[in-house]
């Protein structure tokens, strides 16, 4: 009986083998580990427009935040520090303010207070929040040079060590 079940198991492994086993990674966009990062095109506080797909080839941290969110405030200094450590290696941070549920006027003072030097993007319609299926703030998406999400961290604040391990992973 046991031998028969094991034989059936081997047959099932063979039948369920996938000839196109290159995995789903990179074939479709979704806000989850292993998928292509959903693209967006958003204005920055400096008036520029940034499209995520233009940064293919760089390691990107997409951080969704709001000025009223305490853990978002708490993790910003660590993000700024790690950004400065790794930016010369091809790492960039896009911090997207969830402006549709925040006060746009509060953003400049927040940026000044935390002396943030990476681009701050504005999501006024909530389109990017929907594309990234935002459920909690902050939410962070670590995207590798191929544009694939390698890690998602929901909630915060993220510790510096966590940021470093994830950034080193996406820079590989």
């Amino acid at each position, binding site marked *: 009986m*046991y031998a028969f*079940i*094991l034989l059936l*198991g*081997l047959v*099932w*492994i063979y*039948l*369920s*083998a*996938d*000839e196109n*086993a290159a*995995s*789903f990674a990179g074939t*479709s*966009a*979704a*806000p*989850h580990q*292993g*998928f292509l990062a959903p693209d967006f095109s958003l204005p920055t506080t400096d008036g520029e427009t940034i499209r995520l797909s233009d940064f293919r080839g760089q390691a990107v941290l997409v951080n969704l935040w709001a000025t009223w969110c305490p853990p978002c405030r708490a993790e910003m200094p660590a993000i700024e520090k790690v950004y400065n450590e790794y930016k010369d290696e091809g790492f960039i941070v896009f911090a997207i303010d969830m402006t549709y549920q925040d006060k746009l006027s509060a953003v400049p003072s927040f940026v000044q207070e935390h002396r943030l030097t990476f681009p701050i993007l504005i999501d006024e319609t909530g389109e990017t929040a929907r594309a990234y299926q935002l*459920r*909690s703030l902050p939410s962070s998406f670590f995207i590798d040079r191929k544009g694939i999400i390698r*890690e*998602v*961290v*929901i*909630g915060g604040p*993220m*510790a*510096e*060590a*966590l940021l*470093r*391990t994830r950034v*080193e992973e996406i820079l590989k």
Partner: protein
Amino acid sequence: MLTLFRALFAPPRDIILVVAALWIGLALAEKRSDRHGISKDALNNLVFYSLFGFLIGGRILFALTNYSAFVESPLNIFSFNIDLFDSTSGFLVAALVGFIYGKKQNLPFWGALDALTPIFAFLAIGLHLSHLAAGTAFGAPTDLPWGIDLWNETRHPTQIYELVAALIIFGIIWPRKSSSSPSVLFLNFVALTAGARLFLEAFRGDSVFVFREFRLAQIVAWTALAIAFLGLEYASIISKERRFDESK
């Protein structure tokens, strides 16, 4: 219903489901630990020390393997970030701590595993619920009418398949009367769990492939199934021999 569940237990709240499952599993296991020659207190201590080993071991080994990330911020080793954790190392340390505690307390090895089986079975239920909430362990795209919308596709609800399998396995394991041979309960659980994984992995959309086209989890599950069957066969032989000796 599913949307509400996923909203309620969206990460990082999905961990609540696993913790609740551990708690319920422990409460159930306590009721029957005596059958396996383990006192309620010994079982609680075994679980507590193993859990402690899991948490401390998972964090310390994560820090050691990512040493360079902690050099500038060593205090981050005490951070509340659950992502600073290596769960595989945590499980290994937990198993080691549990083994050492069992040896020191002279707990019967197979009896202890049998006593822990309801916890493992209930943990599996909690784990699949947390997968459902987080959208992890997702299925391959499908046109079937019971497919769920997840990650921008209609997919096999593999988390629900696995949850149903875990509930059935618990339903089989829990009413079982104590076997004359220790290890049978635990090995049956391993065999059923491995069998379910071997079958259901075929519907997963996130499989890791080896040798270009074979699913790694199926190969591991098949190996676990074979080992469990060997153990059950051995337990059956021992049991027959014991009955034969008793009848003489």
